């Protein structure tokens, strides 16, 4: 089977990877060492492999690696800034105890990121819908919803400042 070189931007860095035709983005990213992207159901149900492509969230087990040619892919690793500073969403998940086994967490965080980009002040219903493609078998979701609410408040200040500038 043919191998292809895919050029794309991974977590703000121009990146190349060698992939096969039928290889999913999930598997290709894990081969690259991006292990926040979890291999759960591999059929689009669990959301543990959620990544952003451009500004939208996708389940990377349903995307073929070749499809991200020339695109920007963001994973949970990419939210961490210089000096290992965690993103407000990641912090909120820790502070609210929204993590137990942690397997769903990177996917939850990426789905939250996409949700807050679209709805900076989501209602409870919008949070529930926004995370409805991500399954958690530990927390019962309440702590996750609290973390999203908390993260949305932390988000306020810098965004408004940017708007004024």
């Amino acid at each position, binding site marked *: 089977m043919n191998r292809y070189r895919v050029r794309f931007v991974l977590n703000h860095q121009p990146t190349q990877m060698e992939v096969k035709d039928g290889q999913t983005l999930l598997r290709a990213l894990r081969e690259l060492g991006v292990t926040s992207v979890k291999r759960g159901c591999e059929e689009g149900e669990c959301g543990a492999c959620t990544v952003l492509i451009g500004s939208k969230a996708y389940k990377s087990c*349903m995307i073929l690696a070749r499809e991200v040619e020339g695109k920007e892919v963001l994973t949970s690793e990419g939210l961490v800034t210089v000096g290992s500073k965690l993103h407000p969403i990641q912090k909120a998940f820790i502070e609210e105890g929204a993590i137990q086994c942690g397997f769903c967490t990177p996917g939850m965080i990426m789905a939250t990121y996409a949700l807050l980009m679209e709805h900076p002040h989501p209602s409870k219903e919008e949070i529930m819908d926004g995370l*409805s493609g*991500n399954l958690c078998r530990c927390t019962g979701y309440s702590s996750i919803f609290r973390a999203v609410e908390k993260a949305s408040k932390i988000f306020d200040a810098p965004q408004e400042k940017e708007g004024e500038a």
Partner: protein
Amino acid sequence: MDFALLRPTSLSEVLEMMNEYPKARLKAGGTDLLVWIKKGLISADHVIDMGLIPEIKGIIPNEGEGIHIGAMATLSDVICHSAIQKDYPDLTQACRMHSDPLIRNQATVVGNVCSAVPSGDCIPPLLAHRALVHTVGSKEPRVMPLEKWIIAPRTTRILPEEVVSSVFLPQPEEGIRVVGRYLRISRRKALDLAQVGVCCVMEWKKSSFQTYLSYGAVSAVPFRCLEAEQIINEAQRVDEELLQFVVDLAVGSVQPISDVRASQEYRIQMVRELTRQALMECYLEGRDQ
């Protein structure tokens, strides 16, 4: 997955590839296709990815005639589209209920129509709006009413070497107000298939209206209940007496099965409830506007 992936950039290139590899599978969003391949439900040596073809991306209004939903338009694209929200509100509702927000970013309306499963959420609203399926192929382009398009579960009238380029929604006539409801029941809200889906569309012109009533997941193929529509349109009212009659007609026209999602008895009971609710809500909303 062991297939060769082809990535054409125009529909004519797709047709050439299909000619060369007659058994190739077409991929739009791929949310059904990749799962079916992985599970071994279908075989695929070649997969043609339609993601790089500009002419079938997005939603294209055709001034004064209607709206083309291109083969690569996602459910999220449809949900955000203001003209669809206004004139085809039940389609927006159906897209919102489909799967989850991540899959909606990827899955396409045309894919839903081509997968042609009995529970496809987009199908009852498209039927109620008398949607047309546009195809291109090695012969002349074809246009076919969606009603005739699906002939059995997962089976459509598509020809070999033919591609669906869009689904077309005719524009309501001048002065028509459209009220629509897509109501569905499923075991959980997200990521589950409908146990029953009922769509009602009422097109109001002043105080008179035309009703369109369609069903998903309660027969081999989603369908419109023409008899019930006719009774309602002749009566020009929705009240308890009429509802009892119409609901019986609807129940008589569905043929649900018992499966892992619901029993036949439950589905029939829900057809009663949802038909009643959809009709009443559309009637009251249209009448009071």
